[in-house]
């Protein structure tokens, strides 16, 4: 008698706990931010200044929002537009790339980023295995960190269900489903991990303040290996004495003055 009652009780507790945690998480994510109204007000003002063509005003307002802690795709998109209109191509590309962290599939953003990249005086082709992999894993650049995380969870759930199905039925279809779910989990989970690594470990930078000389060593006395146009996107791999070692998308490396680079990562601001 008591045995039969204990199992439903445990199941009920688990279900209630899961529901409660879900509700808490949803509520936490949508909870009213006390700063939201202020941000929205300033945002509207800045956007209006942009529409009116007062780009210096728009820039100061958008930058003020950023300094105050406002973080979203629209802010960086508008900031990118403002920099672009003020002929600050490097900062514009950086802002667009930051907006990509939030809205990678936004058509306006993709268009504007392409336009801005097209304005870089010395275009650099992308080469190497990493870019080949990125081209194959098309979803990687089209998804945010959170989307990849949620997709991984979904793949995990699918895998659990497929395994249970496989264990219960042993059918060929269940085996195929298990394999597909495992593959999806591997790809999506791997993408999530890679994205997390990229956003927390890889130092992506953009060249600003005009054309930059890239030296063979971390000194101005070192010979100039090549030049990087404003807006060129690079990866920093080392730092020494006010110089940073960069790797361009085509694989060329060199040292560039730190003040000619701005980071894309938000935690490096």
């Amino acid at each position: 008698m008591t045995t039969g009652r204990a199992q439903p009780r445990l199941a009920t507790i688990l279900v209630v706990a899961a529901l409660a945690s879900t509700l808490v998480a949803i509520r936490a994510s949508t909870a009213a931010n006390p700063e939201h109204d202020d941000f929205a007000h300033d945002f509207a003002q800045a956007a209006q200044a942009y529409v009116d063509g007062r780009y210096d005003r728009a820039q100061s307002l958008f930058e003020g929002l950023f300094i105050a802690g406002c973080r979203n795709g629209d802010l960086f998109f508008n900031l990118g537009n403002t920099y672009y209109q003020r002929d600050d191509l490097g900062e514009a590309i950086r802002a667009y790339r930051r907006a990509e962290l939030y809205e990678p599939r936004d058509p306006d953003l993709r268009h504007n980023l392409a336009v801005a990249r097209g304005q870089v005086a010395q275009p650099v082709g992308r080469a190497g295995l990493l870019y080949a992999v990125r081209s194959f894993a098309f979803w990687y650049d089209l998804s945010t960190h959170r989307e990849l995380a949620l997709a991984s969870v979904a793949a995990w759930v699918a895998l659990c269900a497929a395994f249970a199905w496989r264990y219960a039925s042993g059918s060929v279809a269940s085996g195929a489903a298990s394999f597909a779910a495992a593959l999806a989990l591997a790809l999506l989970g791997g993408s999530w991990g890679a994205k997390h690594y990229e956003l927390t470990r890889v130092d992506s930078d953009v060249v600003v303040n005009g054309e930059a000389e890239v030296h063979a060593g971390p000194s101005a006395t070192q010979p100039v290996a090549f030049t990087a146009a404003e807006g060129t996107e690079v990866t920093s791999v080392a730092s020494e004495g006010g110089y940073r070692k960069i790797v361009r998308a085509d694989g060329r490396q060199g040292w560039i003055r730190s003040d000619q680079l701005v980071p894309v990562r938000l935690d490096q601001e």
Partner: protein
Amino acid sequence: MKRDERARARWGAALLAALVLTSGGPALAYSRHGHGGVTPLGEHGRRERAERGDEGQPPSAAPGGTSLDSAGEGGRVFLRAEVSEHDPFVGQQVVLTLKLLSAVPIYKVEFTAPSFEGLKQAQPFLESDYSTSEGGTAYRVHEYRAPLYVSRPGAAQIGPASFSCRIKLGSGADTSGSMFDDFYSGRSVAGEGRTQPIRLDARPATGGAGVLVGKTEVSSGLAPAVVKKGQPATLTVEVKTFGDDDAVPTPRLPGLESFQIIADRPLTEWVPGPDGPFLVRKVFKFALLGKVAGAYTIPPVTVPYVDPATGRPKEAASEALTLRVGRGLPAGAAPGARGSTATVDTDENAVIRSAHATPPSRTVQDPLEGPGWAGIGVAFLAFAGSVGSCVAVSRARTAAADPGSVRRRRALRQATRDLTELAGASSDAPTVFYERVGRVLREFLGAKLDLPIGVLTPEEIEVKLSANGLSSGTPAEVRELLAFCELKRWSRVGNGSSGPRDGDQRDEVLSRTRSLITKLESELSGAAREVST
């Protein structure tokens, strides 16, 4: 310049006169034909019609006209004045048509325009010459048309227009003429006439004076549609109307604050309809210089007007246009070095899209946001559910293959629970207590050995346990305990009451039973199938 031309013409005429004088007579002929005997043809015509008996009646050949009569050719030359509207709106176009119809050859036609009262003549008279046939008679028509606009409500009047001409009377009638008579093929007389004045009654238009009255259309065009910052794009607005061109308003261009707008002088062209009103085509041109890159919508250009057919105000509108203003080249960028991708080099693609003006619902977001606690909870539940369902399936399979397995698995738990209940039930009579203890032990063994153990004696149970490979002490212990319980069950001691000593004995029995069951659980593990078989 014109004075020189006139002087040259006079000299030419004098030379020609000298030549004529040397041949004799022409000077007289010129005097007689050219300027002598000009008759007020209206009077002359009336007199001749009175002689014919049809005074006051329009000539049958060209009804409704005023006759420019002449001797012998009365009723063959007429004047006719017509207007397109007799009660127009103020500002509406009224076409005045003056016609000189002649069934006989005429020449040296001269026309004096009428005077207007309360009307404005927008264009000079348009002259045309064509043939027509009315009442079976062929006429040559000299037509004069002009667009008029009523300038104020109330009565308006078109004064009489004067015509004069030479009317040919017939070939060979006068042979005493000069050599020019051969050219004119006979005698001619002067003809002269005036049209009747026409009175109009103008109605005020909705919207007051100065409003455009007449069917109107507006169209606009943009060239080029994509420019760079500072480069001009030409916006052309064409207004086609039958109204007064002075009443066509200059188009307004709202919402183009990001442009420097330079307006050109409008061009007006009058296009006469074959028989109808004159069409006014007014073209406005604006140079738009974009100050800010972006995509802009030029709103429809609207022109209000009054439709004379209904007298109600209407609005003509063009279509909206899109103008893209591209950003100029970045500082220091050589045009030839731009653009890795061909698509971004085109003007169309070089324009960035405008800002997102609506604040997002979430102003603060973390780019490293993960699945959240909800996601983690779902993942955990999925895992737990998967494992749980596998365990359930496994048990179901085992139960299907070995029906006693569930009972066997639960035997220890059930026995322990029953013994715990027994320990709490101290009020039971000894007979009941020992009977229950014996039953717990028997049920445990029955479940474990999958046997109908309730019907077996303690000795038979000992044999079965020994056969199952249990150590020699345990089967005997089981037999002793069962025998003890049987003994206590049937003894008369206590008679339903339980004293302190009996309580100690019960505890001891319970303890012995627990330890024995635990021992049997470990020793009988997996033995049921062997025994049952």
